């Protein structure tokens, strides 16, 4: 796994490449604990959001298992009225969570910013 310093640098790059960046974290899927965090707003509870998103991913994995689907989750995109949230799986144990302001960004920008730097997260 990349070092903590490298993780922080990657999140900074994602912030730079994401218009309307709100927050991003690298999250341990099993525990929901954050491995690296970056937030542009202090009122965004990134710790809680990361933890609950881990439950979201786990539930999705359960659904896939129930349906007998053999594929893997690449990412999960949630479009809110004012924000866009992207959950990008990094390996089988972690995921990247990114939240941006919808007025300043769009789905394509968000995906591009994450995919561009995701490989460095699992180095």
């Amino acid at each position, binding site marked *: 796994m990349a070092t903590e*310093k490298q993780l922080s640098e990657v999140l900074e790059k994602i912030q730079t490449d994401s218009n309307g960046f709100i927050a991003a974290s690298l999250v341990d899927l099993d525990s929901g*604990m954050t491995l690296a965090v970056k937030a542009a707003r202090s009122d965004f509870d990134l710790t809680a959001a990361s933890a609950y998103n881990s439950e979201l991913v786990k539930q999705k994995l359960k659904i896939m298992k129930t349906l007998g689907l053999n594929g893997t989750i690449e990412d999960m995109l949630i479009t809110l009225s004012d924000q866009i949230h992207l959950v990008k799986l990094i390996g089988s144990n972690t995921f990247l969570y990114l939240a941006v302001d919808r007025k300043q960004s769009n789905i394509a920008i968000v995906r591009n910013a994450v995919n561009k730097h995701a490989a460095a997260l699992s180095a």
Partner: protein
Amino acid sequence: MAIIDESRGVLVVRIVYDGPALSGKTTSLRALARGVSSTVECPGELGGRTLFFDWVDYVGGLFEGRQIRCQIISVPGQRELLHRRKLLLETADAVVLVLDTREKEWDFSLGWAREVIPYCRSKDPPVGLVLQANKRDAPDAVKREDLGRALTGTPVAVVPSTATTGEGTREAFVLAVRLALDRVRALSSAGRLRTGKPTEDGPQDLLAKLRTAEQDGAAPVSESFAQAATSSLAVEAEPWAAAPKTPATEGAEQAEELLFTPDPLMPGGMIWPPVDGRMLLHEVASLGIRPARAGHADWCGSGSGFRFHSFSHAIFADQSHARSELIEWARLHSINAAHLSKGRAVILADAGDGKLRLWQIVRAEATLRERLALALALTNPEHVANEVVGAAVQLVAARESFAAASVQFPCTLWTIGSSNSYRPTFVGLMPERGNGVTPEPQGQALLERELSPHLRELRRARVDYDEVVARLGALAQLVGQGTPARWLSELATGL
């Protein structure tokens, strides 16, 4: 100590940071606290050194819909405070072992790891361990590939870190949390995951617990742990030997005597029993256990499920005298074989300068103490009472059985095996034969010595202690006077 705190809707787990003095435990906690926007509380800190523990409280993550409340504590690493370290480690759901990986400290760090790793694995369920290889920024830090190589055969996660910058501290912590959750799942599957208020809800509660334990008999801070642990087998109270010597003194003492290195190819006639003893030597030779001692005290070593011991005076310049002693010890073991656990050997090893030293090697076995620790954590008060009575019966039976031995075996929770055998076994180090040993108490006096501290802790920690006492009373009614159940009930009621 994992517990579901229903009133707050959280799962509480304890992550314990262990490691030698000045390895970076407190620095790691401070870096972690900064990273998660929490604070470190250090009761009793003196000159920047941890005397009791450091405490960080952090809520994050989710487990089955409940937030995870992590009580993150670091233990004192100084040898004089080992008794506090032990008490804290006993409560761990996961351990982060912080080691100094600089070249000059690496042997000492490895010795520490080789004691802690089997201790964690001996727990039921095992306590997960993360090895935080610290001080990686040092110019003389051992190579990364050498870290894992040194622990070949030992399944443990290694996370490189530089605690002064915080590098690696978060990764180690999150991994430890994951291991703690594994343990929680195992406890839950076995129906042993407790619900209720944590027994220590904050640093002041934990401080009070440590102080109470010291008043009840744990060694005070001024006593040398090495001397307390090795000076008398009659008060043997823990399965660990003394901690390895600090590197500063090791060089000087090495000049006096050759360190014992188990050699399965050593000459015949120096090992008892001849065949099984050599096989045991073969087994321990690969474990890299290096006994140590403080000053001129007994030699001790432990790790990977084995214990080594040599009395300070068991060194002989005359070879025939040494052989006579070996034969006497072999005879002692043979005569008392019915009382002893398996997996023992007596060795005459080269001590340098033409001298020989007599060693005993004992395979570690599960003790009554460990069984009792599990029992006291059961949720059902009736089950707790049943298990405590079982331990009492075993203790008394052991004392009666050992009366027939040719040597006085110390009869403690640490020296009696945990199985409910009709014939209790002595699992401790073989004591010296000889005169002037204080007789072991019997009957109720024995139970009072061994079980009263645990009953007091039970009373303090459990809100349903009265139910436990009631069950003990009910069990006592089923048997006659002068039985362990009766004595135990009287003890519990009288506290």
